[in-house]
């Protein structure tokens, strides 16, 4: 049971870390209103993104957003203190249990679409602060739609089996060999911001694969790239400062956040303190990765076809030599999305276009136009294949079938 004790100890310590303060500064920081603290922690955890029906312009934190999972649609809960439909009757302990164990007030299991496998690492103090903040919200009466899940997943008890297999109620373990900043970064990434919910590969049952930690994951036809920043990592050629600007301002030399990551930056990370963003960056930059596998080279004819498509359609913005215009048009010679194992994100950007997320720091509009009307599946596959083969980090060819599937998905929407 040393694991449990560890967890408890770590939890207390991490509470301080999560706040971004050293234990010495604790006394001073505690006078800070707990509600304000909770608001900040809820922002860092991006609770609002899932618990607001953004598509339909719903009230903040009133829930009802349909989350697409590979298994069906799961609707988020109302977190406002409404007696009948929200958290009005919840106690602090019940709230902590929901985050820490994925159990609702009535004792039923929550689906892991609610990222409690990450929030379980959150300290009790931090959870209590978030609870205190949520109590201050205007109560909103909002019934949540029925989940659209197939049997047997529609039975909440099925989650019990899932938890048995994949859920570790493991607290946050401080690594004493690492700096305080590093530990704080890790706490933010793992316990609050749950970056791994998207950036870590999942097994067939939707659970994080430990050995795929932050090595890239697929969600709803997006590929969230490898964000390990050490040797061979997806962000190996990013400076810590680039990560800070990407998360804080929505622009970096390498790329900008788009639809999915744009939501995270727009709702959450742009509101975080620079020292917390730097802690995240320092932590990510410490994660090395295995060397890339040798990539298959496309035929010369295919390479040249892709190059011709690129020159005629893309060079105007991304430059003939693919070096782009940093901060405006992503350099494609080193793009992590282009050379990702799973090229979904690059393909969908080319078909559907993309917009760089606006932020308070950088409110400008930049968008890439869609090419679905103009390029065939084969042509998109050829241009991506060319970019992958010509990149600093070579990656193998892409088939027209992959583009066809993505096109069908985008047209369905």
């Amino acid at each position, binding site marked *: 049971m040393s694991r449990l004790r560890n967890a408890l100890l770590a939890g207390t310590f991490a509470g301080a870390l999560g706040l971004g303060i050293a234990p010495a500064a604790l006394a001073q920081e505690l006078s800070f209103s707990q509600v304000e603290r909770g608001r900040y922690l809820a922002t860092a955890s991006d609770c609002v993104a899932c618990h607001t029906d953004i598509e339909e312009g719903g009230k903040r934190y009133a829930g009802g957003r349909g989350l697409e999972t590979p298994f069906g649609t799961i609707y988020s809960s109302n977190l406002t203190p409404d007696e009948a439909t929200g958290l009005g009757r919840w106690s602090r302990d019940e709230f902590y249990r929901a985050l820490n164990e994925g159990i609702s007030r009535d004792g039923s299991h929550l689906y892991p679409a609610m990222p409690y496998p990450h929030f379980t690492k959150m300290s009790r103090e931090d959870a209590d602060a978030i609870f205190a903040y949520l109590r201050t919200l205007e109560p909103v009466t909002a019934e949540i739609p029925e989940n659209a899940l197939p049997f047997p997943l529609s039975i909440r008890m099925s989650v019990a089996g899932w938890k048995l297999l994949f859920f570790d109620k493991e607290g946050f373990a401080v690594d004493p060999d690492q700096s305080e900043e590093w530990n704080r970064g890790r706490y933010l990434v793992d316990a609050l911001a749950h970056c791994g919910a998207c950036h870590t590969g999942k097994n067939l049952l939707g659970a994080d694969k430990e050995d795929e930690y932050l090595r890239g994951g697929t969600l709803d036809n997006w590929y969230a790239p490898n964000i390990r920043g050490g040797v061979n990592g997806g962000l190996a050629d990013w400076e810590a400062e680039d990560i800070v600007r990407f998360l804080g301002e929505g622009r970096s030399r390498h790329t900008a956040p788009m639809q999915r990551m744009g939501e995270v930056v727009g709702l959450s990370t742009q509101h975080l303190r620079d020292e917390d963003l730097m802690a995240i960056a320092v932590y990510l930059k410490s994660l090395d990765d295995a060397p890339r596998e040798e990539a298959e080279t496309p035929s010369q004819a295919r390479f040249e076809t892709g190059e011709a498509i690129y020159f005629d359609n893309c060079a105007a913005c991304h430059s003939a030599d693919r070096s782009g215009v940093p*901060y405006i048009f992503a350099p494609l010679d080193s793009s992590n999305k282009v050379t990702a194992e799973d090229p979904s994100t690059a393909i969908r950007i080319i078909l559907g276009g993309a917009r760089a997320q606006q932020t308070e720091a950088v409110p400008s509009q930049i968008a890439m136009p869609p090419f679905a009307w103009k390029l065939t599946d084969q042509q998109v596959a050829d241009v991506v294949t060319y970019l992958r083969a010509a990149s600093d980090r070579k990656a193998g060819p892409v088939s027209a079938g992959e583009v066809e599937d993505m096109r069908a998905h985008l047209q369905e929407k």
Partner: protein
Amino acid sequence: MTHYTRRQTLRLMLMAGTALAASRVLAAEYGRGAGMPWSPMSGEVPYYGTGADRFFSRDERLAVAAICARLIPSDEDGPGATEADVVTFIDRQMAGFYGRAQHWYMQGPFAEGTSTQGYQSEHPPAMLYRLALAELDDYCRSQRGGAFAELSEEDQDAVLTGLDEGEIAFERVSAKTFFDLVLENTVEGFFADPLYGGNRDMVGWRYVGFPGTRYDYRDFVGHNGAAIPLEPVSLQGRPGWSQP
């Protein structure tokens, strides 16, 4: 935004023009961005002429093709309206909103107008073609012994000159207006993007050395008048976009 140079800002402003229409409104308060709404897969797709639609009858098509072939002849100097398939361009235009004068003011009164006042006919272009072509063939049969398309090149040139110079008159429409319209449409069909049916294989563009629908010449800024050695490209691409 200290990292933006002035040149980058300029380019950024240009890019603002590419902002796309959106179907979904996302409230600014969610931090998904205020300003222009945006959604994927939307954009201004160019109008593809009128697809496979046709307006001309067989005889009308033969006559128009023959007229075009004289206006931009195929000779040792280069390809002409025939290679560019200009007649298909005009046929598709007549079947579409242009042929119907759909976005012109077409109520009376219809005055003569001067040469600088543009199209003055009470007939939409498609109807002008139909009425004029019928009279043209009648004229050729009675005066030259066959429909326009069947005449020798010399006879065809003489008839076209007659239309242009007002020596031949039609009863229901102005022969001169008809001539001017066909000439204008022929030039358009020779140089318009192949997307619209003419300028087949970009022969018109190749002929004059136009590199097509490109919009960035940064790599050639220092060229000072030298030819740009680029294959022309259409909105639909070019042969180089397909693997051999």
